[in-house]
């Protein structure tokens, strides 16, 4: 029946999980996981144990070895302490890994897919990295419509980062208005009214970039990142040899 099993966000499994089918871990597992299907560990998922599956996709935290018979993909926000092996291994920017990584065996039956790209489009990639660049391109593409606005918008968009949020909220209604308003009173209202146009169209990129993307992923890291990180190396204040030099000079 249910080919895909789910360990819910509010569930803790302490023991081994094995068998057929795919597995989605949104909660916690303390034990080894070994399934024939894909394994997906969600952003809030935590596993302490070895994980084996066909395609293993990690967005959460794993303390243990990962083995994917087809692929192992670490999404942004993933934290893995353990060895990683599989024919295809993808570690997206923003993922943390500590351990031995090895790509081995023959690529999966679906060779067309490339690890890194596959990993990105899945969830966050579009939001994370390309966040900044898309804004200009989109504005340009749509500029032809709001002829008067674009020039100003481009100039002002970069600076008033916080403003967009407000504008977005108001934006839906003013859409039709701007043309009229600008014709009447160009100087004062235009800065306020004009921005909404482009803002309305490009809400996706800006939102994703500053607000949602970090918001989504930061929570994952704060959980344990600091405590787990090794303490900074103790660097001696006096570099090696300086004492010897001093002594020598005294002598």
């Amino acid at each position, binding site marked *: 029946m249910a080919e895909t099993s789910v360990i*819910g966000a509010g569930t803790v499994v302490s023991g081994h999980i094995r*068998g057929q089918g*795919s597995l989605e871990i949104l909660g916690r597992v303390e034990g080894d996981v070994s399934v024939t299907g894909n394994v997906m560990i969600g952003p809030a998922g935590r596993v302490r144990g070895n994980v084996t599956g066909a395609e293993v996709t990690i967005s959460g935290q794993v303390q243990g070895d990962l083995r994917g018979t087809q692929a192992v993909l670490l999404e942004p926000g993933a934290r893995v302490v353990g060895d990683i092996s599989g024919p295809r291994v993808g570690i997206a920017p923003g993922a943390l890994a500590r351990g031995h990584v090895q790509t081995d065996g023959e690529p999966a039956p679906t060779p067309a897919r490339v690890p890194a790209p596959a990993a990105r489009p899945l969830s966050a990639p579009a939001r994370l990295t390309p966040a900044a660049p898309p804004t200009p391109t989109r504005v340009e593409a749509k500029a032809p419509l709001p002829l008067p606005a674009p020039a100003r918008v481009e100039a002002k968009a970069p600076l008033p980062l916080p403003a967009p949020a407000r504008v977005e909220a108001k934006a839906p209604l003013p859409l039709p208005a701007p043309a009229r308003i600008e014709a009447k009173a160009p100087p004062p209202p235009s800065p306020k009214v004009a921005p909404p146009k482009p803002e309305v169209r490009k809400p996706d990129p800006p939102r994703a970039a500053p607000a949602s993307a970090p918001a989504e992923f930061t929570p994952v890291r704060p959980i344990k990142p600091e405590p787990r990180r090794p303490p900074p190396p103790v660097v001696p204040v006096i570099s090696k040899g300086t004492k010897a030099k001093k002594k020598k000079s005294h002598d």
Partner: protein
Amino acid sequence: MAGTVIGEGLTIEGDISGDEEIVIHGNLRGRLTTTDAVTVGGTAVVGADITGASLSVAGQVTGDVTASERVDIQAGGKLVGDIKAARFTIADGASFKGNVDMEV
């Protein structure tokens, strides 16, 4: 949708605990504790003590059951173990062996 689903073909050896609904179609050996409903599907084989708000059994369960609300054994279901629940039903065609404590 159920919070946790153990699909057919999947085996868990160990404890499951949580605060959400749990549906089992596969195998479980260990212990199962939740504050929500537990459903044991027709293909499931469970050898575990179960604690939950309610339990519905269509598969096989071996173990003691404690439910804060109710326990239902569906037709075709099999339960061996003691039951402690306020309400308890056994459908025609179900099999059951054990003690029942309905907190009278």
